């Protein structure tokens, strides 16, 4: 029988993907709870924290830079350091890098545009709690919608990412070959931390659950957390 997850979905001023995220996990049979940024504690007995997309604090100063100091982020940091699973999508990814829970940083897209479209992604590593239902080299079709998705990490950090199999996804063509979308180092679209319990990606799997809306590849990604 499928395990029912209890998912905490964070909400900051300016978050706008919290309901999509709840819809996605509830469609998969899980329970969700919104958590306000001023809350100092996460709900009890949760299986996953999702930091959803949006424009927390208007993206002022840098995307995610102010949200990371919210009271709830202290609880998330403790939860993550204790091995709890955390998924950051889009602005959530930016918040997790700003908080130091994920390495690197997200800069303005190279072409300075807000890019909003369906994008192919190649699965680079699947030996983790997120992409375990996807195959290595598999191509997924997932929407992206961001202005600051240009992932940067220095050479030393990049080597570590590669060696520890922390690179999750790259922007690719339909054959899985990397393509330049926003200027990210080696076309990286998503990564995890060294302990493989904190995940971040710019694309929106929660927007890819119905074939009629262009793709249902997001289901396989999010269901990974059931394992």
């Amino acid at each position: 029988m499928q395990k029912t997850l209890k998912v905490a979905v964070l909400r900051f001023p300016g978050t706008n993907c919290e309901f999509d995220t709840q819809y996605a996990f509830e469609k998969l049979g899980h329970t969700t709870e919104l958590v306000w940024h001023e809350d100092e504690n996460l709900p009890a007995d949760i299986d996953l924290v999702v930091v959803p997309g949006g424009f927390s604090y208007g993206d002022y100063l840098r995307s995610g830079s102010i949200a990371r100091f919210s009271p709830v982020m202290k609880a998330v940091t403790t939860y993550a350091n204790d091995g709890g699973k955390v998924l950051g999508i889009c602005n959530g990814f930016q918040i997790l890098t700003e908080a130091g829970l994920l390495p690197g940083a997200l800069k303005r897209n190279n072409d300075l545009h807000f890019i909003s479209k369906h994008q192919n992604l190649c699965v680079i590593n699947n030996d983790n709690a997120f992409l375990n239902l996807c195959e290595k080299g598999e191509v997924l079709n997932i929407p992206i919608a961001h202005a600051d998705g240009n992932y940067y990490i220095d050479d030393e950090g990049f080597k570590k990412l590669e060696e520890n199999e922390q690179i999750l996804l790259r922007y690719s063509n339909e054959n899985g070959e990397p393509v330049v979308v926003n200027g990210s180092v080696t076309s990286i679209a998503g990564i995890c931390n060294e302990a493989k319990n904190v995940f971040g990606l710019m694309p929106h799997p929660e927007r890819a659950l119905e074939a009629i809306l262009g793709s249902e590849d997001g289901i396989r990604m999010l269901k990974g957390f059931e394992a």
Partner: protein
Amino acid sequence: MTKAVVNVFLKDGVLDPQGKAAHHALDSLGFDSVDDVRIGKQIIIKLHTDDRAEAEAEVKEMCETLLANTVIEDYTIEIN
């Protein structure tokens, strides 16, 4: 009162997409003397201390904590 002027820029070696776009625009306007353009931000902070050293130490901490992301950015501080 002390005024601190903080300048935050992307580090050398980290591609600055905005600077590059401005550079291209300057090139196409005929300003062919331009070697490089970097765009950053300036943050002006007024502190209610008159102790310059104290102000500088405090502003440095603000930069390290919030105002700059030292993974990709450098900063300078001027105390006036």
